[in-house]
């Protein structure tokens, strides 16, 4: 950890007045993303603090989801997508050939916009990740992982009696918490959330937000959201994207009360977006 902080201090340029107190978990430097030659992200540099929630906000199509998907190399699965620049995690570029994307994704988990549980039992949904990574020694070990993950995701009380029921039989909000439990079951360090509440009703959204606030104590969380209220409620740091560029990043309080940039102010006051 010390090494990472020292490196971060050494970088020191660009839009990087961030992560003052917590250590830096991921550090992105001069990221450019192209879809079949068309540029979607322009030179974004951003440090992400550990054990806190970073919210990415901005109007539709501003590239925040694309940027998020760079962090666990999910963009690899998109045909014709090219990522330039460095994303450092513990001092190593995650895009370098020596990094196995499969391994990376077990360290950087992801929760998607639409809940996407596997069409299998609740138990299997959680157990699949630990199983393929060999995290459980035996049956009891696995049971414990499943229980712990479901408890952390605040779903245990609701499903403990029907672990064999299909994951898809749960309600939308429960499915999303199941997906979060599935992501934390493989003990990631970072959790990426791509508009996790956009398909949920306000009550389910509130539960997820509570959960995010709770998870922040253990994980580094990056959340893309369309709702500025949500960003204000759950995040400690906020980054505002516009037209593929990072406009402003800072403490959430500062962004929402005294933004430095005119565009940020226009957006958060609802003048465009």
């Amino acid at each position, binding site marked *: 950890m010390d090494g990472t902080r020292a490196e971060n201090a050494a970088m020191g340029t660009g839009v990087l007045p961030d992560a003052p107190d917590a250590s830096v978990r991921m550090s992105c430097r001069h990221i450019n993303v192209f879809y079949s030659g068309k540029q979607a992200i322009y030179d974004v540099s951003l440090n992400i603090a550990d054990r806190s929630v970073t919210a990415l906000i901005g109007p539709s199509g501003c590239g925040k989801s694309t940027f998020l998907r760079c962090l666990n190399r*999910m963009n690899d699965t998109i045909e014709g997508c090219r990522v330039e620049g460095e994303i450092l995690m513990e001092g190593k570029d995650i895009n370098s050939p020596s990094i196995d994307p499969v391994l990376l994704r*077990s360290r950087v*988990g992801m929760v*998607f916009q639409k809940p*996407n549980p*596997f069409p299998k039992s609740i138990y299997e949904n959680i157990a*699949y990740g630990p199983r*393929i990574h060999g995290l459980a020694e035996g049956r009891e070990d696995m049971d414990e992982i499943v229980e712990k993950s479901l408890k952390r995701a605040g779903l245990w009380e609701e499903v403990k009696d029907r672990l064999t029921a299909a994951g898809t039989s749960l309600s939308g909000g429960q499915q999303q918490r199941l997906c979060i439990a599935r*992501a934390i079951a493989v003990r990631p360090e970072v959790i990426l959330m791509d508009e996790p509440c956009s398909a949920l009703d306000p009550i389910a959204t509130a539960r997820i937000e509570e959960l995010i606030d709770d998870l922040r104590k253990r994980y580094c969380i990056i959340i893309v959201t369309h709702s500025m209220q949500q960003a204000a409620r759950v995040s400690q740091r906020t980054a505002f994207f516009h037209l593929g560029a990072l406009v402003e990043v800072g403490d959430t309080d500062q962004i929402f009360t005294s933004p430095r940039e005119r565009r940020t102010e226009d957006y958060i006051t609802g003048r465009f977006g």
Partner: protein
Amino acid sequence: MSESSSPPFASEKALKRLRRRRAADRRFKWYGRLAIGFALSALALLLASIATQAVSAASYHVVAFDLDVDRETFGNVTPDALPPVDEVYRRVHEDLLARFPEAIDDPAKRHALNGLITRLAVLPEARAIVRDRRAVGAVRHVRLPLSDDLDLYLKGAIARHLTVPVGRVDAVQDVETGTISLTGEGAFTRLLTATSLEGVPSPGMLGGGSVLLSAGLSTLKASSLDSSGASGTLLTGTLQDFRTHPVRAQLILAPESERPVTDQQIAWLLALKADGRIARVPHWSLLTHTDSTQPELAGALAAIVGSLLTLLVTAALAIPVGILASIYLEEFAPRNRVTGLIEVNINNLAAVPSIVFGLLGAAVFLGAFGLPRSAPVVGGLVLALLILPVVIIASRSALKSVPQSVRDAALAIGASRMQTVFHHVLPLAAPGMLTGAILGMARALGETAPLLLIGMVAFVAEVPRSPTDEATALPVLIYSWATQAERAWEPMTGAVILILLTFLIAMNIVVVFLRRQFERR
């Protein structure tokens, strides 16, 4: 926005538009129903026509014999000897001659008598004698199939015939050798009415049908007939029978010269029937015999086994290759010019006429590789090539229909690409892939043209034991039987078509069943 003042559906014009729209909906629904009705009725017509054609092949007539398998003749038969067909057939022939002594001195009649049972009909029995040593020295009760024309006659397919009861006659006289006259006041009035109703010119007149008069075990062919008397030649039996038994007449509504069955043979059939030796039994030999030149002996077993062996080779090749190719193309291959070209070519291959694949098989597998002709292994290879594009296209579309979110979910928790595909994508795509594979197999089962070209049309008398043996396939058997001249082949062909359809329906039921299984999971 000109009519913004009035509510949307208040104006006459708007209501009319609404009515037109509804009418169009209704019309379209009826077009759809009409199309489905047409398709269903065409299918029903097809099935009904095949079934009515095949139904007469479902059973056939057999004649019972008691064969004396004596030690003198058969004692030295060894298991590796040729089956003693001639010896067994001689027993059958002697049995018939003993029963119908009128044929002994008349070569023409003897020939006609031999026509009742063909020589090859005793082959299974001769084989059984070779196989089973205990048969020697005992009397075997066997039932041999009646020759195809006589069988068809009994089924009413050769010539229309009907039986009219005459009753007892008053007097029977032997006019001269072999000619008898029957007299009885008014005894033949009913028969005369029947003949004129059926349009049979009275016997003796040129070109008419025949009238056979039987009593007990004896039959005569009427040459003259009036209301109180009839006379004709005795075909078989004795004059005495006509004195002691009621008389029945059989009207045959086709002149003897225009049918393959003679009156003499019919008389013998009637006698054997009266003996209780002729029975109509289910035609299981259609499923247990191999092909034959005689329709009553022919069966589809070799073709069924040949088809199964061919399908086995096809399945072993086309299903794994097709599924793996589709997985690679859909899940792993980059989208570029090369894969685009491959995709276009696969789609084109699916549209290539099957006979072209047959030519390819003949040139490459037989010509260049020197594989055996007429063998299921070659047929299977050709059919595998034929259905490969179909399997690939079906499997790809099954994979395409799996939502991307499932792949994302698996990848995001660190599953490798292969784990993603095999643990999550394949189980969801399996029902669709399975359907594609089995529909491809069903197409392979029904293909004829490519098999003709690689020589699987050969006459196969032995059941193939391995994919390299000579074999034929069900559709090819249908083709070769349908091109035969004898009429007995027609119902046989229908029966084989039904066998083929049964296989196809069975495959489709398996698909439906497996789909349900997969979808329940």
